[in-house]
């Protein structure tokens, strides 16, 4: 008897899509404020920074890496950007310079993981706290709002009906989609995450590729930090405790990227991010406080992983295996 083997990836992606649509239908039934263009585009704008970071972090996680430092990098970037602007540096120059912070932080994490062999979780946890610390030190723990140039809030413009934030997120998403699916770098990410030794023995420069992926994630964290600063019109060290690293990971896992690397997709991550966005938007509309949203997000992460493990056959077993 031939049993058709279902692809767990497909099931999972379909499942997350079904969950997203279910949430959307449920919300439009419960609240009359939900289903309109302004609210929906607002959800995407809310999730823009998440999508930007998660795009890079998905490729990193497919390669078997992980980055917990985005919030710290965002905060430090934000503070440096604001300080430079206050000091009279023109905005474009300040932006380019503060992007370097993300690249440097990514290179630092990459070095720790690839060369010093520090587990990714620990290395990037360290990077998070170091960048967070610098952000507070440089800003004296206060958000920098005074003396910023007028064009500092540049990102709040609209291109027709679409906020610039959303357009930038879309550009970044497409960029990483192309990287992951059309370039050698993407192919290497899958190969390294799938089996780093095989990749190495096939001539892939595993260390260099891993480092590049950390740098890209750092860069995108910085970029998100710049957008965020512009949106809130300040250089804010408190961005370091925004919890975005957590949301990034939840979105990626919801999207079906394997915790162990080698499998995953950017479309999945996008769906995952939209699930998170819709959930928090829905809870806001229903008047459920932010503090409860933590509980929901934590539960969503755990459920996603438990279901993922069950689908892969290594989690909770529903059938008893026969002893031979």
């Amino acid at each position, binding site marked *: 008897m031939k049993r058709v*083997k279902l692809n767990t990836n497909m099931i999972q992606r379909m499942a997350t899509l079904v969950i997203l649509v279910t949430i959307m239908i449920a919300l439009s039934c419960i609240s009359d404020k939900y289903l309109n263009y302004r609210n929906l585009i607002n959800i995407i704008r809310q999730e823009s920074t998440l999508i930007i970071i998660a795009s890079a972090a998905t490729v990193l996680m497919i390669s078997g890496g992980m980055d917990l430092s985005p919030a710290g990098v965002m905060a430090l970037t934000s503070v440096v950007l604001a300080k430079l602007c206050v000091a009279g540096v023109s905005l474009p120059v300040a932006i380019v310079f503060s992007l370097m912070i993300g690249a440097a932080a990514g290179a630092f994490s990459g070095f720790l993981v690839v060369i010093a062999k520090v587990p990714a979780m620990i290395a990037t946890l360290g990077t998070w706290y170091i960048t967070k610390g610098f952000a507070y030190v440089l800003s004296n723990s206060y958000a920098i709002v005074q003396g910023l140039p007028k064009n500092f809030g540049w990102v709040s413009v609209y291109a027709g009906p679409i906020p610039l934030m959303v357009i930038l997120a879309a550009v970044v998403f497409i960029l990483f989609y192309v990287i992951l699916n*059309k*370039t*050698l*770098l993407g*192919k290497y990410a*899958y*190969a390294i995450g*799938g*089996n780093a*030794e*095989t*990749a*190495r*023995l*096939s*001539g*892939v*420069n595993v260390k260099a590729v891993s480092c590049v992926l950390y740098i890209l994630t750092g860069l995108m964290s910085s970029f998100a930090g710049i957008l965020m600063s512009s949106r809130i019109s300040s250089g804010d060290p408190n961005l370091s405790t925004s919890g975005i690293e957590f949301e990034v990971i939840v979105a990626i896992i919801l999207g079906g990227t*394997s915790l162990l690397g*080698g*499998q995953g997709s950017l479309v999945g991550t996008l769906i995952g991010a939209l699930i998170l966005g819709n959930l928090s938007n829905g809870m806001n509309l229903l008047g459920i406080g932010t503090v409860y949203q933590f509980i929901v997000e934590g539960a969503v992460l755990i459920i996603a992983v438990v279901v993922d493990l069950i689908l892969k056959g290594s989690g909770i077993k529903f059938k008893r295996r026969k002893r*031979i």
Partner: protein
Amino acid sequence: MSSNMTDDILLRFENVKKQFGSVKALDDISFDVKRGEVHCLVGENGAGKSTLMKILSGAYDITEGKIYIDGKQVEIHNPSEAAEAGITVVYQEMNTIDKISIVDNFVLGMEKSRCGFNLVKKNVQFAVPYLKKAGLEINPHTLMGSLSIAQKQMVMLAKALAQKAKVIVLDEPTAMLNDKEVKLLFAIIRHLKKEGITLIYISHRMDEIFEIGDRISVLKDGAYVGTFDKDKIKMEQLIVKMVGRELSDVYPDKKRSRGMKLLEVRNISNSYIKDISFSLYQGEILGFAGLVGSGRSEVLRAVFGADPKWTGEILINGKKVFIHFPKDAVRDGIGFVPEERKSQGIIGCLSVKDNLTLIYSQMKAKMGFLRKKDEDFITENYIQKLKIKTAGSGQMIQNLSGGNAQKVVVAKWLSISPAVLLLDEPTQGIDVGAKAEIYQLIDQLAREGIGIIVVSSDLMEIIHLSNRVLVMKDGRISGELSGEAITEDQVMMYAMGVEMNEAS
């Protein structure tokens, strides 16, 4: 069957069979082990020695047949039942915990305790006499990790004594010992013998077997060949019993015309291999033989840049090349099919196509962008050419059979037309039918002008594929054979370092 066993027979295998799926690993094995003897078990890799011992130790379930201890049939389904029956196996890879003390390792699982508190003093009192008996007289609170392999062995032997073992199985106990330690181990073995302990001794080293053994049982291809008194058989005869087999028609014709020199390796050394030099010619298949741990695979890994080299140089077509990493070898046209297919050869969770094109893409990508059409074409091309059985190029490679997955690994290299292809255990874990296909493929590649080096622990494979064979022992090339001189006996002689005259 009424018992006609005499008193001095301690352990008896009767018609033992073991089947893995459709593969027969052991076929009708019957022999006796006498009380208080050192019974050696010999055979080539894959002969079934380990399988038999795993059945005895409860790691595998027996498919058919019976095992008797002291005339009583025993059922052994797991290691604790084996221990109850008085059987202990001391494995080559010692299963000790390095970060706790000798005594804690010793009493692990049989601690003296009260209300959950470990009674350290009592444990020590219990352990020390046995440790002494096994020849170990150092502070029992020493960390296990600071002991040498020989000392760890002693701890495990002592533990076997404490568990009142009747039979102790030693699996390649001297593989990682130096001469002095081997002597010490043999002294302990003789001492244990005097105490009435029976030992089963597995080794590839003929000299040791003749030194320490009383009787020798030979296994070959999962079947029992015979048991011999060591005084009544010569080393050469024993080797023939181990390897002598009929020729089979799985192997391709060996007549190939030798062309120009493709690859020259001069004096490469690293921590595994010493001063290796050889040449490889177009159109020939060069085999590397030797026992496990002799450095065969390590030579390939060093040439390919998978392991570092300390000294030496490599020339391709007479030109010196610098290979420090695998990517350098790829650039210079050297392909490598590694030993461990699952952990080094394939990327299990990716598709046949992604595996097959992993190297091709590196060569053909334009500005970092993949050329999907070329990749699709090359994948379909090789699936047809090598007759790879797969549901499609998008099939996950881990769902393919061993032989087909191996073809994908070979195709991965062929796609960049390598000058030299290094094959490490190309048919490991592959069934006979697929083996023949792989041999045909290797033969064809050699005829097309690719220089082929094959490393294998399957002696028949080496003998019937290679035009020339280099035999390794202890990290050095101990002999070279070519043409008609490539015989099983000759290879084994060099591999085991037995001094012998031309006539055998």
